[in-house]
């Protein structure tokens, strides 16, 4: 019983603050949106550096472009799509969550499920 109390409380506190956090992060201003997106873009003229962290001309152009697009009311997905069409998907540090990349994104969760089933199966047998 003691454990149940402990785990219940810890899970509840965690969940509560997750939701709290999500609701807070819902309305960011444009500056923050630009920062969040440019952190996930590759500076094509640097070595493995994000657009946000770099001061190269390329990065400054992209920063302005992203800012303008946000001000015009475009969504993050639309801007990412535009950039991917122009520069190739290589620019995105976070690959699209689509059919092609299903394996990439699903892999950890497939592994987790398999190993959980495996554990349950193993212990049941004994």
């Amino acid at each position: 019983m003691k454990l149940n109390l402990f785990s219940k409380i810890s899970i509840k506190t965690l969940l509560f603050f997750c939701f709290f956090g999500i609701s807070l992060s819902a309305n960011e201003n444009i500056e923050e949106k630009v920062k969040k997106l440019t952190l996930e873009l590759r500076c094509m003229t640097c070595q493995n550096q994000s657009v946000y962290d770099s001061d190269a001309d390329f990065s400054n152009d992209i920063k302005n472009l992203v800012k303008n697009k946000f001000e015009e009311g475009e969504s993050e997905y639309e801007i990412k799509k535009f950039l991917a069409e122009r520069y190739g998907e290589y620019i995105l540090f976070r690959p699209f969550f689509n059919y092609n990349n299903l394996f990439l994104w699903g892999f950890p969760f497939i592994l987790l499920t398999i190993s959980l089933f495996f554990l349950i199966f193993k212990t049941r047998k004994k």
Partner: protein
Amino acid sequence: MSSLIGFLSLIAATGINFVLLSSKIFINFNINKYNTLVRFSSILTFISFFSLMYAYITSDFSNFNVFQNSHTDKPLIYKISGTWGNHEGSMLLWISILSIYGFFFSFTKKIDIELKKLTLLIQSFLHLLFSFFIIFTSNPFLINSVVVTEGLGLNPILQDPGLAIHPPLLYAGYVGYSIIFSLAIASLLNKNNNEEWLYIAKKWSLVSWTCLTGGIALGSYWAYYELGWGGWWFWDPVENISLMPWIAGLALVHSLLMIRGEQVLKRWIIFLSILCFSLSIFGTFLVRSGILTSVHSFAADASRGLFILLIFFIITGFGFLVFLLKKPETSKPITLLFINKFSALIFNNILMIIATLTVLLGTIYPIIVEVLTNKRISVGAPYFNSTVIPIMIPGFLLMSIAPILSWQTNKIRSARNYVIFFILISLIIVIQSYFSKFNTWGIVGLILGSWIIFASLFAVLTSYKLNFNFRFFQKVNPHIAHIGVGIAIVGITFSSVFKNEFTYNIVEGENFKINNTDIVFDKIETTNEKNFQSLRANFLISKNKKVIGNVKAGKNYYPVSKMITTEAGIFHEWFRDVYFILGEQKDNEWLVKVHVNPFVSFIWLGVIIMVYSGLIGVSRR
């Protein structure tokens, strides 16, 4: 001359290993002969390595490798580290470390003789493979065809004390797994088997894991102050490659701990042993073949890349083949109780392997996609942050309650105290964060980190008699290690979630204010050093109108290689780093970037504690 000695002793060492391997078929040497031959070949390999180092120290440009990577202007330390600052030399370092491990392993006493023989045989097989690789594709002893008096110089970015010792430590980690690999395979092949080898494997796995931890941390610290990007981990492919054997090795160290719990997962341990070394070689292959920058640069280095790929397939294939064919007799049946130390360890092991495989997939996914579809894509930090970190979180949660779990039963010791303290800590953190910037990840990381620190500290204080002798430190060592992890988690969370950046365009003499700190952009200085010119901006830092220190940030220009490096200036305080980067100059104005990174020192402190407890762990049976 030194090149000749080096080359000949490498050949001789290879010859000895060849004799040792073929002796298995023709005549059966006794164990003393094995020991002597292994030690002899190790010493020859050292001689080979040191003669290359000698050529570097004396700037012997008749050696082609020295000519390409050294320069008389370099300070002595970088002449020495230049030995492994290039492909050929680093491979020679690789087998020298392999030899060191073999050399020390040959002194192991409490071990079945047949098992020891087999292990040494596999070690010399590995030595042979890598010596062939060096002799045929990456010979560091080639003679320069023209007579020259000056070399081409070492890449300036490598001219750094941190990076001078980073490769040997990292390799000591990678190559250390070879002993565990050989032991595991030998234990499968050996007929009469006991569990003695697990204790030996535990020691060696701790040695290599500790070296790897130190090596990765040094590399990361180097990236922090040398790259001038303000961060210390970028999920760069080369970093990921070192992370994989690190996590797998952590899983291995933990499953070897289960020997104490009397339930041994032999098969799992052997699997991990093979996996760790395979990942190490795979990492070497990816880095050394040049496949990482682009799939196409593979062509330039085809023979080397293919050769290492071949070695990788031979070793991994051999390892897993033996693993599948020779099943270890199933040890005692596993009983997983609802929650105890044993099942927590198994669960954490699974999480660590999932994390390792996820990092592996993320690292090679772009390569696979490019080969299959000819399209270039990136898998970067956002992917790893949103997959690997959530996978690890349940593990950290288990870590925080680890001290109150017992090995055999379902009982939980003094749970009430823990629950009360956990809630108290969480409340404090939540209230504190309410008054500062709120961030979900920040809260989760802080709570987990402080739970781990608290629970381990509590366990040390309540479960053991406090007397400060060596045995006490051995006993509480696991808790100390976990405190280190907790501190590192707090540091990582703070420095990545609550960092701040400021950009200024200012002229000399101007000042600016960050929080409660006044900073004056004092002046620009240029000086001529031995092998570079330096440009430094001096910043004076003061709090409450009292100067508390100064920091120099700037750039170095290396005329030999015509390269400019960024030299970040860092003002270290216990609870934050103020990190200065000097940018471009426009008219009189300089671009100055300042990062305020809170709690970075906690990361290094945590790592130091982990390394310390790794070392203590080696001494414990």
